[in-house]
């Protein structure tokens, strides 16, 4: 249990950077997931040297260390289910360099995504992975999670932006991985290994990230469909046509109804809507791409076709998608919106079947689920709306999730496209990656022989995600 040498940690990071009060530990026991488990101490290092000293101590004493950025993870990645030292990286928040000639920026892990983009904007460039949580998510957390967002279909995920990293290993050693260059073929791509490792292999203390020019023109189009299958077919056809959308979003009927119900936006209540966007430096080229996507929608029985370059009009249309998240959490007074099986990716051709499967599994198990997402990158988001105080609702959710993941696996999809594995998706992850689990365990054992870095996550996560650790809700038995 709690055997942390608090005076020693205080000596390393200073009095102002350590919290041991039960209230602080309780708060840091939560993130944006359904879980709650308090750490033994919260430590907030100011610099790399302090991170090294904390890790060296924790390694000697075999105490778990959980690195944490904004605490916006949705799968329990930063919930300290084994206790230990919660390493809050928010003090290492300086943008170190914006290097225009070499097209990279160098940042500390606690830099907030939106802040980095605000700093890059005057140079006419942006950092593209940007998840929806970019106003709170830190670059360190995004690296740990391999985060991405609505524009990943064109600009890729965090792994595509990472050029190099400085990482403190479990024993406190500092290593420099990758390079300052766009390409590198010098052996193992170890910086990419750290991306998506959810704090289980090392603590990122500095990152070299690429950026891209801000496009001069954006054009957004909309198409409504009376059948989910037609919308799904349109997605597949768009991606196969050679067009490069900068965004391709699907919204299903449950989502449209939720937005109308809570926001009164008066959107047409159809089976599905597609939002498609192109961007670039040349207006005619952008319009060509959008017109082509519109034509494909029309061929697949899309109706109410519309597109516009106007920023205000685009914002008005996109508001429905942006407001979806709050709309779902206010869907019904007796229900809360939970993130569980919430970001699987499937092949384009299976998009419509996937959405249908989600609806079928939800209905069968007495919960409400919606399907929406960045279909251009194959990502399908869901939210489960349920009465979180009722145990049977959790059991229903669990059954639905199991069915959905069985289907995802059967069609060559993947457990998580954006949000990572943490605790809540570990079961499906282990099934999907069954033949590489040994390899993962070997890598973990080589880099962290005492298993102190974020233990109990990914392949190590408990088997029963409902009961293995405290849910943050009061659930009646």
């Amino acid at each position, binding site marked *: 249990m709690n055997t942390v040498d608090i005076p020693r940690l205080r000596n390393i990071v200073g009095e102002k950077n350590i919290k041991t009060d039960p209230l602080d530990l309780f708060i840091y026991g939560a993130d944006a997931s359904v879980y709650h488990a308090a750490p033994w101490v919260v430590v907030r290092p100011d610099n790399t040297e302090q991170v090294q000293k904390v890790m060296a101590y924790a390694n000697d004493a075999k105490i778990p260390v959980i690195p944490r950025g904004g605490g916006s993870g949705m799968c329990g990645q930063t919930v300290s289910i084994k206790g230990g030292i919660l390493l809050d990286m928010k003090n290492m928040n300086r943008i*170190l360099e914006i290097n225009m000639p070499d097209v990279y920026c160098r940042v500390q892990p606690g830099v907030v995504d939106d802040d980095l983009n605000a700093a890059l904007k005057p140079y006419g460039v942006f950092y593209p992975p940007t998840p929806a949580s970019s106003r709170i998510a830190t670059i360190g957390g995004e690296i740990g999670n391999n985060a991405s967002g609505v524009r990943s279909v064109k600009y890729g995920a965090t792994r595509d932006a990472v050029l190099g990293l400085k990482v403190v290993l479990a024993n406190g050693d500092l290593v420099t991985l990758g390079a300052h260059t766009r390409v590198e073929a010098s052996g193992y791509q170890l910086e990419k290994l750290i991306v998506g490792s959810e704090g289980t292999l090392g603590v990122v203390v500095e990152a070299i990230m690429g950026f891209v020019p801000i496009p001069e023109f954006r054009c957004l189009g909309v198409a409504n469909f009376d059948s989910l299958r037609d919308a799904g077919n349109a997605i597949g056809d768009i991606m196969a046509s050679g067009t490069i959308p900068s965004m391709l979003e699907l919204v299903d009927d449950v989502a449209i109804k939720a937005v109308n119900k809570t926001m009164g936006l008066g959107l047409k209540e159809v089976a599905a809507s597609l939002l498609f966007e192109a961007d670039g430096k040349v207006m005619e080229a952008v319009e060509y791409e959008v017109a082509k996507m519109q034509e494909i929608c029309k061929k697949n029985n899309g109706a109410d076709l519309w597109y516009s370059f106007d920023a205000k009009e685009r914002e008005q249309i996109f508001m429905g998608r942006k407001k979806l998240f709050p709309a779902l959490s206010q869907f019904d007074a007796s229900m809360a919106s939970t993130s569980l099986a919430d970001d699987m990716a499937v092949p384009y051709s299976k998009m419509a079947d996937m959405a249908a499967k989600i609806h079928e599994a939800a209905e069968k198990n007495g919960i409400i689920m919606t399907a929406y997402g960045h279909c251009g990158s194959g990502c399908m988001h869901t939210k489960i709306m349920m009465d979180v105080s009722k145990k049977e609702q959790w059991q229903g959710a669990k059954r639905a999730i199991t069915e959905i993941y069985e289907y995802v696996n059967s069609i060559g999809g993947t457990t998580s496209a954006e949000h990572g594995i943490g605790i809540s998706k570990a079961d499906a992850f282990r099934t999907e990656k069954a033949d590489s689990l040994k390899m993962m365990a070997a890598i973990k054992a080589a880099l962290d022989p005492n298993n102190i870095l974020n233990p109990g996550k990914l392949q190590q996560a408990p088997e029963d995600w409902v009961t293995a650790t405290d849910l943050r809700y009061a659930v009646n038995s």
Partner: protein
Amino acid sequence: MQTTETKFKNLEKWEGMLAKCIRCGYCYEHCPMFKFTRWESDAPRGKNILAHGLLTGSIELTREIAEKSFSCFFCKRCEAACSSGVQITDIMLDMRRDLVELGYKKDIGTISTTDRSCARCLQCVRACPHDAREYIDLEGIVVDPVKCKSCGICVEICPIEAISIPLPFGTDTENMDQKAAEFLNSTESAKVICFACNWSYHPDIQNSKMPESETHDKEYEILVNLCGGRLDKNLLLTPFLNQAWGVLVGVCPDGECTHDGNIAALKRVTKMKETLETLDINPDRIHLVQIPRGDKQLFQAEIDTFMEKINQLGPIR
């Protein structure tokens, strides 16, 4: 977690809404307390987690928890940004009502407090825009910890400095003074201090630091205070005593300030202009602008115009 019989009679009704908080953390960037300490325990999400923990019996009430509940400046920016529509400040007010019944009443959090040197002039009672202060025989000035919104108008109006906010989170004159002097003395290119109101404007970069290459030739620094009404004459003078070329003050437009702080700020800026004139300094070196809530573009335009003027005037000789 099991629901237990609650001693939080007012808070109880919010349990469902607290469960709806999806803990996205979108409130962080808007909270002046979180921006000052960068501890998640000071952010609105943290307070929601505590309130939910108390209701479900997952955490025991302590004075430290009560202190968090009594710490808020009621700018309500968190509420406006909340992705789940959680009524954070209403929840906190009900929690305060319960805490008062449980004995937590004074010298706590951001609730203004009056020390024994109080001369009972009652200026603060008359000035409080929230009707939170009253004089009671034998007790002196009593503050209602539910009504007090920690705007600090009383702190600034007290002629003998008997009023303070126990946990000021960097909003006190001393801290603002220090920040202004630090910028002016450590940056060679420094010329202007812009005091911005948390309600009407806050800078783009929320919780990160710009590269040194971007800040070494900075001509102005934006210091975000809680309300223009809290800018006392000494604070307006500090930049000039530290070789500033000018001072820009941003406040809410007429009728929009929750504490009538913009009126107080106008009076102080007018007085400071008179003081500058007596010192044979151009009074245009201090300027007040009204900025509607969140209008960053307008404030930036006002800053640019003011900088142009100040650069024409040059340094004070």
